[in-house]
């Protein structure tokens, strides 16, 4: 497929998709969204790059291999389960930093459930990339 429109558009759409996916990832704790859906959106950014004829770039975020994302995502998710055990809590119990205000973004809540979601986000990206590569007939390295 060699559409010049898609070719140009992909360059401008991939990054916004990634940013939207991060926003969806963040709001997902109490609203629709989260790591899984965010990860799918981000993976759409990757695929758009791939399918529009650019091929995967040599450098930068969009060049990373599924075998970078998968262990990273799973590792983050596992890591997020542990801080709960340090205090009085238990395995997988959420630990939150005190909320703080940021201009434009409002009240920010950071905690281990967010780390878990980020892990899921990475893992989903890795999974979709692996799936895409396998369907396209590439041997994963």
């Amino acid at each position, binding site marked *: 497929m060699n559409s010049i429109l898609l070719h140009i558009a992909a360059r401008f759409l991939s990054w916004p998709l990634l940013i939207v996916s991060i926003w969806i990832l963040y709001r997902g704790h109490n609203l629709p969204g989260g790591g899984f859906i965010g990860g799918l959106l981000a993976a759409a950014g990757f695929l758009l790059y791939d399918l529009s004829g650019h091929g995967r770039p040599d450098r930068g975020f969009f060049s990373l291999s599924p075998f970078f994302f998968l262990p990273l995502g799973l*590792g983050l998710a596992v890591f997020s389960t542990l801080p*709960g055990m340090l205090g009085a809590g*238990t395995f997988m119990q959420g630990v939150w930093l005190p909320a703080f205000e940021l201009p434009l973004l409002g009240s920010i809540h950071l905690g281990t459930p967010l780390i878990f979601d980020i892990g899921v986000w990475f893992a989903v990206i890795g999974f979709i990339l692996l799936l895409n590569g396998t369907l396209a007939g590439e041997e994963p390295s």
Partner: protein
Amino acid sequence: MNDLLLISPILLPLLLLIGCLASSRHERRSSVISLVGTAVLLAACSVLLFKVSTHGTLTLAVGGWMPPFGIVLVADLLSVLMLWISALVGLVVLIYGINVGSAGTRPGHVYVLIQGLLLGVNGSFLTGDLFNLYVWFEVMLISSFILMVRERRKKQLAGGLTYVILNLLASAMFLCGAGMLYGKLGTLNLADMAVKLSSVGDPEFVNTTGALLFVAFAAKAGLFPFHFWLPASYHHAGPATSALFAGLLTKVGVYALLRIFTLVFTAENGFSSTLILYLSMATMLIGVLGAVAQYNVRRLLAFHIISQIGYMTAGLALGTHLALTAVVFYILHHIAVKSTLFLVGGVLEMKTGTADIRRHGGFYQSQPLLAFCFLVPAFSLGGIPPLSGFWAKLNLLQAGVQSGEWLFLAMALGVGILTLFSMVKIWNESFWKAQPSTSDGQPNTSDLPLARGKPYLAMLLLCALTLVFSLGGYFVFELSARAAANLADPTLYINAVMKGVTP
């Protein structure tokens, strides 16, 4: 500290999976990570076993969500016994060499899948939540399916497809049953479910959902008439992989049956277990008849799994304390014995290049050590005293006498003789008779790679375990009796889970 210990059988395989995934390009590194990590897992499970056997059942409400709302992990004596032996089998299979005798395209990825399998198995043993059990079953199914077909041979794919389709059907039944139970009772926590189901007073509902779950677990366990996937698929997987499957996969089904049908669907709650007894007897007979007719060594052994599963579920159907004790003992004995036999079968296949035992021969003379590794588990499986199979069968038969199930008694004895017969068949064909020559006058040999030391170390370890179960039978029997006491009295489990929570 207890929390970390209790979660480690799930956390460790997950961490190892990530480690192996990150280094999947380097087979050697993955194998070392896997081996060392699984040894640590075995150590953790041993500590957990010691702790639970001295301090009683441990529970962990994941995320601090108290039962019946959150997922709760429960380690009672049965769970930790199963965890311990599955970690041991995992370690032994890794020592044997998971890639030995198979030509997978990506050797490094195997270790990821092995850890995934252990993760699913351990999760199933620990969880106290019906839906969570379903999730662990799926983790196990996916890992085992890919392990089974990873060499991409046509026969493997055919067997693997049967395996995955029948197991997915079973999973659908499981989901239906779980959905109905959740709709009626509003809970997925097993302990809470047991309490609420006793006050439902609707035997039709109890028996319908019970039957759905029974079919689901029976298919995983390989019970007649849901056993077809097992002899179709196991012998096509690599030798070490099939030993792991033989040891663990069906036993997870048996564990789930034991757990759910002593805790939730009991006679007091209106569930009728007569059907389980008759299906078990049919399973015993059909499995062993299949084995008698077979000449493919690992396929023959696969049919034996089915037949032996029948003994275990028959004990569950009898339901007395002695019967449940015998079942727990039987499971432990069977895992050790069956994994050894599959490993030996794998060596036979690799040495001769064929699975057909009619073309084997002379191994007693050429490989006395291998003959020893076969004799111990084979005699144990056949129930020759003083090996572990004898104690397992003796107790089960005693339980049968106590319950007055004479048909079961006759069946168990008859199937025992046929079991011994088919073990003797392998012995005669592969070990005793002279090595046959092929048409061009050359003896059968194979060019498949087989390391010299490690596979034998693995088989001897499992033989030693069988001997421990045999000679230390009293100690193991005592542990089994205590695990069975927990099963026979569901209030113990319920109180351990719901402590400090008002229903």
